[in-house]
């Protein structure tokens, strides 16, 4: 069967698409930064923390990684108000995504920490480095270098996963697409445009991460 693609109606609403693209970028950037920070902290607790702290951190990682992101989002957006905490759409979105990414990041970074042999840390201490110095130079940076590919893959996945917040009406890229789709019924055109934009975003992100790699790890 033949289908004639008509992009006019979709491009007529490019403002909405651009706004969505911007929000997706902002969400991704914010969530990746926050999620990374949380992930590193939780990973540190998982590997070097006290047993009780370790157990809490492990519980957090398991619960988040084994349940769907959508459910976590719903709990925060619809569940918290019954406890008296009403977050707006963007705050709830950022919170849910950050908590989710934090767990995945923690799991990846933990593997990185564990790849650093104990002897290296001892060597660092014997060289007279302080605790934070050891953590930074001997543990964190090498660990991150070891897990860099899986870490950045996870970040790209998170960028794609931000589309889930369209369910609670955050006007990001996917939301913009489905609004246009429901108005114009031009499903194929809308999905094509959205797919190309996501692909572009993820390629950009990957390029950005490989630049970062060169900046941080190849002096």
């Amino acid at each position, binding site marked *: 069967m033949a289908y004639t693609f008509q992009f006019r109606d979709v491009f007529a609403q490019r403002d909405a698409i651009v706004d969505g693209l911007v929000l997706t970028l902002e969400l991704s950037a914010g969530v990746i930064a926050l999620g990374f920070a949380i992930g590193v902290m939780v990973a540190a607790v998982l590997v070097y923390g006290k047993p009780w702290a370790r157990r809490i951190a492990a519980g957090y990682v398991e619960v988040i990684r084994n349940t769907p992101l959508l459910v976590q989002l719903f709990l925060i957006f619809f569940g918290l108000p019954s406890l008296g905490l009403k977050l707006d759409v963007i705050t709830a979105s950022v919170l849910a995504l950050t908590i989710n990414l934090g767990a995945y990041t923690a799991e990846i970074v933990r593997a990185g920490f564990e790849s650093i042999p104990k002897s290296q840390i001892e060597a660092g201490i014997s060289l007279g480095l302080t605790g934070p110095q050891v953590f930074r130079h001997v543990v964190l940076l090498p660990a991150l270098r070891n897990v860099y590919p899986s870490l950045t893959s996870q970040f790209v996945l998170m960028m794609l996963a931000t589309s889930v917040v369209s369910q*609670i009406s955050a006007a990001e890229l996917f939301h913009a697409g489905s609004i246009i789709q*429901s108005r114009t019924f031009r499903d194929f055109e809308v999905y094509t445009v959205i797919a190309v934009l996501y692909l572009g975003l993820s390629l950009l992100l990957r390029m950005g991460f490989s630049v970062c790699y060169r900046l941080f790890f190849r002096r």
Partner: protein
Amino acid sequence: MIKKWIQSVAVVLLSVGLFGPALADRFEEIIAKGVVRIGVPLDVPPFGSQNVNREAEGFDVEMAGMVAKALGVKLELTQITGANRLPFLLTDKVDIIISVMGLTPERAKQIMFTAPYANTSLAVYGPKNLNVKSPADLGNYKVAAAKGTTQELALSAANPKANIMRTEDDATAAAAYLSGQAQIFATNSIVAIDLAKKNPNKEFDLKFNIRRSPAHMGVKMGEHTLVRWLDSFIFFNTMNTELDRLHIKWLGRPMEPMPAL
């Protein structure tokens, strides 16, 4: 020379392949095959939902049964969602969509709508103490509405500045209103009445009616025989009061006269 020859063959092949003899008429095809494939929603009660035993039921589901019976063919129901109903129709995976679709000229550039078969009205609800009487009064209140529905389209058009929370579906919009994430809820009057019954401590005060919103069936662009048959079917069932019976059964009130398409 050969290059030119190849080119012209390519042109012929292309035009034959892509725009060759028009496909057989869909209406005749349905009769010949003895099966009509109809897409209905299962997530839009009272038009289509699953009962507790997972059987499809609702206005649209019953309507689909009537269409198949009147055509004298077997019914093949396909459950569709807002996100995939058009692709299902456009790629010939269903013949007809019966899914409380509201018509807009913009959508009509892509598919053809039949005469209206169901009469619903859309309204805006909220707590008693809010003084809202028209779209202009919405101000900064957050209004929950399922995205892409007629209520959302109409409200967006009536007041482009309204703070509309476009949720995934009606149930999510209801959750937003019930949890207090939105102050106002735009939905079908039938849904609001049902919800009010189930949530007696939440106020569902009618603020204003958005507009009437008849539902239409949809067929693929160009299927004129089929759309004409469906128009006749709807006309016939209006005259013999079958549509009225469906309205009373599923929507709880008789049909009002509907504008003709």
